[in-house]
């Protein structure tokens, strides 16, 4: 049938936006839309805020294939890279190595990999435990009151640790926590995000300049003496390293601590089991990482050639957004995926830290922080419970990293 001129065919509906809202009443579950997409359209089109489109990948196997294939570029300056709606540090100018491809990515990443290697991080475990105990001591003095667990413990532990490692004064934590909050928001305007980026850059530029005059025994100090002084990298590169490690180093772990603590307050059986068998904590942390999958706005890639993924052709120059929470709830890989099972045999197959050469540099540190903080909370505050109904907790579906904005608790 030919449409009459009076009633033109409707324009094709715009692709939906990236799903971000958890199902009603289920704050720990990923958007329900992912389950449907995994079976019906594992690679589907989404609209980004500026109206451009990108592919959304929702199946575990496809997501590993994409993230494990360097023909899917992380270089944000590539044609077709899905920039719109991206959060975090600098995107195209002065960007960190996570927004680059090999060989430059490999060269820069290897300048800091040793700082986060397993044995270096294990050596920090006693310090992380001491720090956690001190914060818990301070919390204990507030027994009977409502305490915001985010402010009292979840945010300070990783912020203190990354500040110490980098050589950033912890006294400045209000500055970098506020700026990180703006940078990772999905709801601020581009101008607000740009302004936070410049403010963070200015702050770190000043800090790195001071360190150039007197480099300390910390990551930034070592980058200056071992890489910048011999001419391997520039001042601006050190600032980019600082921004990346500072942002990635505290916000992610902080949100995992808050969500994990809340989950275990509501799942008494699992909490009792972890108290009785503390050696289960390593597996429990892997399962919590899988279950919560807090990265909600990517990772993102641009195809540099035509590549077929799961039967779908992705063309050179097209953008791809990967749904980490969907991969980690894929029933093809994880049996009964919506259940939290701290003894799940393949929990560590999760892609909560990403996959491929960009997989989280700080994952060993994140694991130790989570094991220590969650283990300590279970041991020292067995009666801790939310101080407000759980559906009144402000969840972070407005942020690129999911979690709780605040978590009022009592015991």
């Amino acid at each position, binding site marked *: 049938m030919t449409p009459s001129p009076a009633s033109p065919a409707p324009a094709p509906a715009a692709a939906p936006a990236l799903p971000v809202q958890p199902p009603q009443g289920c704050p720990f579950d990923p958007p329900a839309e992912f389950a449907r997409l995994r079976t019906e359209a594992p690679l589907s089109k989404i609209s980004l805020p500026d109206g451009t489109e990108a592919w959304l990948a929702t199946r575990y196997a496809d997501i590993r294939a994409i*993230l*494990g294939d360097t023909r899917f570029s992380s270089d944000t300056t590539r044609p077709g890279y899905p920039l719109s709606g991206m959060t975090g540090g600098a995107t195209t100018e002065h960007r960190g190595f996570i927004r680059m491809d090999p060989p430059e990515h*490999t060269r820069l*990443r*290897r300048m800091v*990999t*040793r700082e*986060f*290697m*397993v*044995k270096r991080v294990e050596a920090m475990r006693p310090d992380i435990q001491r720090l956690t105990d001190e914060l818990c001591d301070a919390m204990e003095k507030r027994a009977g009151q409502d305490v915001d667990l985010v402010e009292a413990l979840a945010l300070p532990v990783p912020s203190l640790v990354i500040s110490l490692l980098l050589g950033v004064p912890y006294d400045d934590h209000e500055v970098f926590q506020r700026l990180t909050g703006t940078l990772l928001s999905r709801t601020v305007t581009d101008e607000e995000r740009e302004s936070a980026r410049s403010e963070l850059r200015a702050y770190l530029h000043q800090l790195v300049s001071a360190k150039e005059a007197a480099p300390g025994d910390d990551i930034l100090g070592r980058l200056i003496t071992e890489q910048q002084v011999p001419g391997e990298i520039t001042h601006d590169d050190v600032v980019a390293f600082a921004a990346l490690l500072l942002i990635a180093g505290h916000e992610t772990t902080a949100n995992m601590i808050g969500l994990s603590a809340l989950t275990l307050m509501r799942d008494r059986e699992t909490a009792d089991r972890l108290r009785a068998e503390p050696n289960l904590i390593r597996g429990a942390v892997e399962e919590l990482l899988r279950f919560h999958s807090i990265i909600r706005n990517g990772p993102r890639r641009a195809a540099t050639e035509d590549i077929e993924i799961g039967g779908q052709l992705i063309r050179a120059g097209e953008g791809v957004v990967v749904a980490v929470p969907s991969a980690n709830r894929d029933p093809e890989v994880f049996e009964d995926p919506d259940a939290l099972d701290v003894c799940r045999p393949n929990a*560590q*197959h999760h892609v909560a*830290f*990403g*996959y*491929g*050469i*960009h*997989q*989280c*540099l700080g*994952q*060993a540190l994140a*694991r130790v922080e989570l094991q220590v903080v969650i283990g300590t909370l279970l041991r020292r505050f067995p009666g801790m419970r939310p101080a407000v109904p759980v559906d009144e907790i402000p969840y972070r579906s407005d942020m690129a990293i999911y979690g709780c904005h605040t978590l009022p608790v009592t015991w």
Partner: protein
Amino acid sequence: MNITLDADKCCAAGQCVLIAPDVFDQRDEDGVVVLLDAAPPADQHDMVREAAAICPAAVIQVHE
């Protein structure tokens, strides 16, 4: 079992060290994987297969 590595591709995520610390280590200068035992005993085999399956950069090849 015999293990070979393509260490140039290693991104030093360190998951192999967490899973099979008797077989894999990381070199001090940059965290890149080092093989401690290229032909590990049978009680290590499951862990080595797991490390190879999880390795984000597909660095570990297991020959059986």
